[in-house]
């Protein structure tokens, strides 16, 4: 549990220095920070599920309205911020809002940390000014596609976001621009895929993730992600049927916008986008009754 330990240590130091606790730095102001550890549930990233979890229940999302700002934790008005916001705060406090706003684009100010993974030479976390072209992130900071290969596709915003193609490389890293390109900046996780990637398999893993993380509260998400995962498994492992891509699209229709919370909705976005751009690869899997990319997997280095 190194992260919790680090945080606990930091909090102890802050408390010892009088930054938190009673009478902060003699100001008469009391504030404290309590570290409450979760226990493994992606759904708790949904703000109401987080509150439900803090209250000791299963981390299932709640009906909105009422919104947390009106009725949140223990029924009291609650502000929910993520780490990204909190991490930005000290810098804004130290340097002033103008300094922050001077960076980025008119629609996306300041900076953002991008977590880059996949087939780049230097994966990792990069803090960049908003609006920086995606090309710069992947090719300069990430050192380009590994093994001298070329880019097949990338996913710009985390597990749920729609796939983008090399033609989108000059899109800037900001919310509006990425949305215009047909995806979302979401959580700021950039997954890069080289030409050898089986996109069906990537979608399969992501769908299995959503299946695993569905809280099970609502029907479309609970049953739909399970069904989609089954379909992806059989396509990837050579047992797909000709109607499967359309069945997946139809399932997406019945899940997206019908689920209780965005987790269910979002489970369909990447799969649907890859069926749109890479339908031929699905068909190849089905016709050849095997994954055409299997031979090219990376061995353990």
């Amino acid at each position, binding site marked *: 549990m190194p992260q919790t330990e680090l945080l606990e240590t930091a909090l102890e130091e802050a408390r010892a220095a009088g930054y938190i606790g009673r009478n902060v730095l003699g100001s008469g102001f009391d504030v404290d920070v309590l570290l409450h550890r979760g226990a493994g549930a992606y759904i708790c990233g949904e703000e109401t599920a987080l509150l439900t979890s803090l209250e000791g229940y299963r981390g299932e999302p709640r009906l909105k309205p009422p919104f947390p700002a009106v009725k949140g934790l223990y029924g009291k008005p609650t502000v929910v911020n993520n780490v990204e916001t909190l991490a930005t705060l000290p810098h804004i406090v130290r340097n002033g809002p103008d300094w922050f706003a001077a960076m980025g684009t008119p629609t996306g100010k300041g900076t953002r940390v991008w977590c880059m993974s996949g087939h780049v030479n230097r994966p990792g976390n990069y803090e960049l000014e908003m609006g920086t072209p995606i090309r710069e992130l992947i090719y300069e900071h990430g050192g380009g596609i590994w093994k001298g290969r070329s880019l097949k596709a990338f996913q710009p915003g985390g597990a749920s976001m729609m796939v983008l193609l090399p033609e989108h490389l000059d899109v800037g890293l900001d919310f509006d621009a990425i949305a215009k390109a047909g995806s979302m900046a979401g959580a700021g996780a950039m997954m890069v895929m080289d030409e050898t990637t089986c996109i069906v398999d990537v979608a399969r893993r992501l769908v299995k993730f959503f299946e695993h*993380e569905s809280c*099970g509260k609502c*029907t*479309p998400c*609970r049953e739909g992600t*399970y069904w989609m995962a089954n379909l992806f498994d059989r396509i990837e492992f050579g047992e797909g049927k000709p*109607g499967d891509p359309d*069945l997946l699209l139809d399932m997406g229709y*019945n899940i997206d916008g*019908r689920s209780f919370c965005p987790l269910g909705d979002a489970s369909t976005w990447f799969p649907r986008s890859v069926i749109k751009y890479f339908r031929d690869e699905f068909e190849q899997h089905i016709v050849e009754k095997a994954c055409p990319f299997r031979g090219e997997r990376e061995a353990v280095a």
Partner: protein
Amino acid sequence: MAVVTDQVTLTVDGQSVTVAKGTLILDAAKKLGIEIPIFCSHPKMEPVAVCRMCLVEVEKMPKLQPACAVYVMDGMVVRTRTEQVQRYQNGVLEFLLANHPLDCPICDKGGECPLQDQTYTYGPGASRYDFPKKHFDKAVPLSDKILLDRERCVLCWRCTRFSAEISGERELALIQRGKDTIIGTFNDQPARSEYQGNWTEICPVGALTSRQYRFISRPWDLDRTATICPGCSMGCNVHADARHNRLGRFQARENLAVDDGWLCDFGRYSFPSFQREGIERPRVRRDGRLEEVSYEEAMAAAAQSLRRAGPATAGWASPAATNEELFLFQRLLREVLATPHLDHGRGRGEAATALEPDDAALPIADLERCDHVLLLGGQAVIDAAPVLHLRLFKSERKGVRVHRVDDARAALEAVPAEAQAVGIVSSLGRKPEVDSLQGKLARKVKGSVRRLLVPDGPNGRGATDLGFGPGRGPGYASLDGKAGRARPDWEAAGVRALYLFEASPLHDFQASGEEREWIQRLETVVLQRPRPSPLDDLAHVILPGRAFVEKAGTVTNMEGRVQRIRPAIDAAVVRDDWKILQGVAQALGADWRYRDPDEVFADLSRAVPAYRADRIGERALWSERA
């Protein structure tokens, strides 16, 4: 000019409807006769919107909205039958059925299953799900009453919400998550709730079923009778479902004023005790042996013996007998035999304490409108009328403070002086204590103090109202110094003959060993009862009568509500109890000519004006007495 109103007007499928603010789309549509399919929604539970069956289009909202959880707004435009909605309804049913076992032919819910019905109306023709279905445990015994089939469960959360919001026991819970989610009790321990039968009624599929009812019948084969639960003085309304003249189950028949739509397991699962095994004939003891005779002979024999004892006769009535029977029985005893020794009920002295009408009785539903309720006697009171707990828990959720106290002193302390409306709930046997507590509280608190007393048996209240006790006549009329003695004093009072009238195996005469010895010494024991009884050995005349579920008449619940009971099974040649009582009276020379229970009721009304034929189903209003 803007008019401030609490009403909003919206359009559903092109029709305009005006409803109160805070109405759900679902209910607004219902008002127009537009049915929106649901699974998880339940009128008595908080909306959770988990099943997603009820999604509809609402103009200006990008996503389909759950009609069961979205409140109406002025000018809202709702569409429930668009192509989009229908295509999705197909989809959600396909999801629900994907892993459903589809074992309808052997499912107890078949024929009355919302999942089955909605699949016919809104569902896809065939499923595109062609994987092996998820397997979960089937026929898991949740308790000695309930079986759980986890494959059939659609995870609507109704049972778990019942456990949390209705009974408050929090015994059922969701376990695991996502596709592995199941419902169950902690560590699969047997469920202990007294309200489990309700789970089977609210479950929209055949996941929770009663072990008793399992595979007994298909719903369409059942004969359904609207009657009252024989369990206790709560007077919960039930449907008694029978097949081939055998009772198959009791189901709730919602009466918001009484049961709020729920039953307890004691009442619900009491029906097997009423099953008649074969037909009995009357018997008369001759030379020490019981011989079968005709009703006429038996009634004549009873009359002959009773005439000898006359005023030295005592009559014990079941608190499960109808008002009509009790009225006749007390006439037989008082008018024909001229005896004052009447009593009823298993408890001792209950009848003797009720000496005036309970004018200030608190209606059951008004418990919700108190600010403090004293449960004097705690769990014992609940045990005597279990559904009361559900009403009290509901009240508590609404903010009523319910104090469980054992004695009057604690009760008095529990309620603060600023209380606005105080309710005392206790057993009728503790009436003297309640009387004095009520007086003290009335002096202590600002607001009103009312009480709800729980008698023994489904018609204990009727028995006291009709004067079936030693101290008061029908309608609490004074006996002008001719009061009789209560059951414990009969021996001392020189009683020589005993007429016992049982009506329900749940509320039989319970004789102590000592009492049995006394009965053995009596010169006459007439036993009118629905089925063989341990007292048969001591009886001189046995008159087989009908059980609670086999007869027509009225009974009065704890709050004074006079409700109709109807025969759910046909007892054929077994004579109606009122006819037997009339027959015995006639054999004793009385000129009675009632043709049916309604005629008896008409007569009863004359003696007890609070009981009115045009107000059956409502509470008897004593203060309106002329």
